[in-house]
C-alpha cells in the first residue's frame, strides 16, 4: 500500500488557545464527569452515563480552533465535547439529573443534548447517527458561503457503520469543510477494537483523496495542532480531513460496567498516561492549583444549580414536538 504522508502543514500556532485554557477545560470536563459519576452512584441520574474520563484531550484539542458558528457533532459519550464547545456545566448537569433547567428540560439525558446556539448539533444515542448530520452541516455552511467548519466526533466503533463511507465520499466529492475526528478509545461497548476495525482508521480517506493523520489523543496540543490545521484548510476551501486520535476509556462502557473484559495492567498503563496531568505539566504548580480551585467552584455551583432545580415531571413530556401553531 502506498504510504500516505500526513499532508497537513505543521501547526501555525494561530489556532491555539493557551495552555491554561486547555488545562482548565480538561479539568472542568474531568471534574464534571467525576461528579456526575458520584451522582449516578447515588441514584440521582435517571439515565445511562457514558464517561469520557481519560479522553478529554480529544474534545478540548478538537474544539480549540472552533468558533461559536462552527458546528460539532458528538456521540453517546459526549460530555467533554459539549463542554469544549461551550455548554454551561450547570445546565448540562441539570440535564443529567433530570431537572427542568436542563438543555432538554431534563427529558433527554446525556445522549440527547443539542444546543444549536453554540453550534453543538447533538450528542447521539445512535452510533454513527451524527455523521450524516455533520455532512449536512458542512454542506449548509458551504452553500451559504460561510467560512465556518464542522467537526464530527465519533468512536472507532462508528467506523463500521455504512454512513461513515457515505460521508467520506460526499465530503471528498464536494470538498466540504468537514473534519472527521475519530476518537479511538480502543473499546467498542464490551469488546476491543480488534473485533471491529480492519486496517487503519486514519487511512480510511486515502482512496477518496482525504488526508488522514493519526495523533496521540492524550496530548491536547497534538490534537489541537492536527485538528487546527485541518480546520484552517477547511475554512480556506481545502476540503475534509480525517483525524484519528488514539486514547483510552478509563471506565467501563457505561457507568456500572466494571469492564471485567480488560486487564488491570492495561488500564493502569493508560491511567499513568493521563492527558490531564500531561496538559497540567505545562503550567506552574501554583497556577494549576488556582485553576483547580476555580474549577472546583464552578462544579460545585453547577451541581447546586442542578440540585436546586425542579425535577422534571410528566407535564413536560409533551412539549417541543412541533412548532407552536
Amino acid at each position, binding site marked *: 500500500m502506498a504510504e500516505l504522508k500526513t499532508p497537513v502543514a505543521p501547526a501555525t500556532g494561530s489556532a491555539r488557545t493557551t495552555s491554561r485554557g486547555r488545562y482548565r477545560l480538561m479539568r472542568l470536563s474531568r471534574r464534571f464527569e467525576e461528579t456526575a459519576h458520584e451522582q449516578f452512584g447515588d441514584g440521582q441520574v435517571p439515565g445511562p452515563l457514558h464517561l469520557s474520563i481519560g479522553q478529554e484531550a480529544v474534545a478540548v484539542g478538537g474544539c480549540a480552533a472552533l468558533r461559536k458558528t462552527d*458546528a460539532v457533532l458528538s456521540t453517546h459519550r459526549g460530555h467533554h465535547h459539549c463542554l469544549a464547545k461551550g455548554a454551561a456545566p450547570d445546565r448540562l448537569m441539570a440535564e443529567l439529573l433530570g431537572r427542568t433547567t436542563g438543555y*432538554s428540560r431534563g427529558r433527554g439525558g446525556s445522549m440527547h443534548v443539542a444546543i444549536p446556539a453554540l453550534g453543538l448539533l447533538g450528542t447521539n444515542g445512535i452510533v454513527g447517527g451524527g*455523521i*450524516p*448530520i*455533520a455532512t*449536512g452541516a458542512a454542506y449548509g455552511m458551504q452553500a451559504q458561503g460561510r467560512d465556518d467548519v464542522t467537526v464530527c466526533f465519533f468512536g472507532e466503533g462508528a467506523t463500521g457503520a455504512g454512513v461513515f463511507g457515505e460521508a467520506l*465520499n*460526499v465530503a471528498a466529492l464536494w470538498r466540504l469543510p468537514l473534519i472527521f475526528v475519530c476518537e479511538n478509545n480502543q473499546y467498542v461497548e464490551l469488546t476491543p477494537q480488534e473485533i471491529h476495525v480492519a486496517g487503519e482508521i486514519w487511512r480510511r480517506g486515502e482512496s477518496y483523496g482525504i488526508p488522514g493523520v493519526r495523533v496521540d489523543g492524550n496530548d491536547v496540543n497534538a490534537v489541537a495542532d492536527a485538528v487546527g490545521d485541518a480546520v484552517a484548510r477547511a475554512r480556506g476551501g481545502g476540503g475534509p480531513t480525517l483525524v484519528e486520535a488514539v486514547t483510552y476509556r478509563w471506565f467501563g462502557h457505561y457507568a456500572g460496567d466494571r469492564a471485567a473484559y480488560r486487564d488491570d495492567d492495561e488500564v493502569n498503563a493508560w491511567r499513568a498516561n493521563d492527558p490531564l496531568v500531561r496538559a497540567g505539566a505545562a503550567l506552574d504548580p501554583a497556577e494549576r492549583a488556582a485553576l483547580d480551585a476555580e474549577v472546583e467552584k464552578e462544579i460545585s455551583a453547577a451541581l447546586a444549580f442542578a440540585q436546586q432545580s425542579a425535577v422534571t415531571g410528566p407535564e413536560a413530556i409533551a412539549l417541543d414536538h412541533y*412548532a407552536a401553531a
Partner: protein
Amino acid sequence: MTAVETPTRSLKFWQGINQALVEEMERDERVVLVGEDVGRPGGPYGVTRGLRDRFGDLRVRDTPISEAVLVGLGVGGAAVGLRPVVEIMFFDFAMIAMDQIVNQAAKYRYFSGASMPLTIRTMCGAGGPNGAQHSQNFEAWYCTVPGLKVVMPSNAADAKGLLKSAIRDDDPVLFIETLGLLPARREVPQEDDFLLPLGVADTRRAGSDVTVVAIGRLVDRALAAAERLEQEDGISVEVIDPRTLAPLDAETILASVRRTGRLVVAQEATSPFSFASEVFALAVESCLSELKAPPVRVASPFVNVPTPVPLAEARAPGVDDVVAAVRTTMREA
C-alpha cells in the same frame, strides 16, 4: 378553496411540484434541493427539470447513492440555517435513511427546542413497471413518529400548495408523491402565495349517505365511484381527502362520519396496520354508536407489487372496488 380572482393553469401533478420548488427557491435563498439525479437530469421522472440551470449547482445538488447521508444533508443543513428539500427517489429507499428521518430529524426539536425545517420528498405506489422494491406505500409507518408530519397530495393543485407550505414549515415534513398521479392534470392556481395549510382535510364532494376517506391515487377513483353511485344507485357519497396524514384532520372526518353513519377508507397501501386502520380506530373510539354499518377498507391485497404494469394495476384498488365497498355499507343498514 382558492379566491375567485386567482388565475389558474392546467398542470400535471409533476408540474405542480416543479412550480412549488421554483417559487419557493426564488422566494427564499435558504431553500435548496438535494437528491439523486435531481440536478442535471432533472429527476428520474423529470419532476425537477430546469431547477439546476436556474439555481445553480450549490442549491440543486446531485448526490451519490447515499440515502442516509442524503437525508443527513437535510438535517444538518437545516440545523445550520438552510431550509432543505431532500428527494428520496422511491419511497422504498427511505428505509435506508430511516435513522436520519425517525431518530434524528423527528427528534431534533424535542432535544434542542430548535426548528428543523426539512422537507423530504419521495415517490410511492405502483404506476410503472417498477416491481416490488420500487412501488410500495409505507405512509402509515411514518405517521407513528412524533415530531414528523406526513403529507400525501392527490392532485397537482394540492401538490403545489402543500409543498410550498411544507417548505415554509418549521418541522420535518415527509412529502409523499404518487407515481401513478404524475401525469394527471388539474387547474393549479398561479400565485406566489398559493399555500394550502398542513393538517386540513379537503371535502372534495359533499354527500349524505356514506363517507369515503381516500388518499393519494384513490381520491380520483373515489370521486369517480361517487358519480357512478349517484347515477346508478342514487347513493349520496361524501369524499374526503385528508391531504395531510399526520397530523390528521380527524375532526373533519369524524364530523362527516357522524352525519352519514357509514365509512369507507380507500388507499393504495395494503390493509393491515395502515392509514385505513387508524381511521377505523378513530371512528370506533368517537362515534361507534352512530355507525349504521361496519366500515369497509378498500386497499391493495396483502401481496407484493408485481412488475408488469397490467399486473400491478390489477393489484391496485380501482373505482369498482370503491363502488362495491359503498354498496356493502348500504346493504348493512
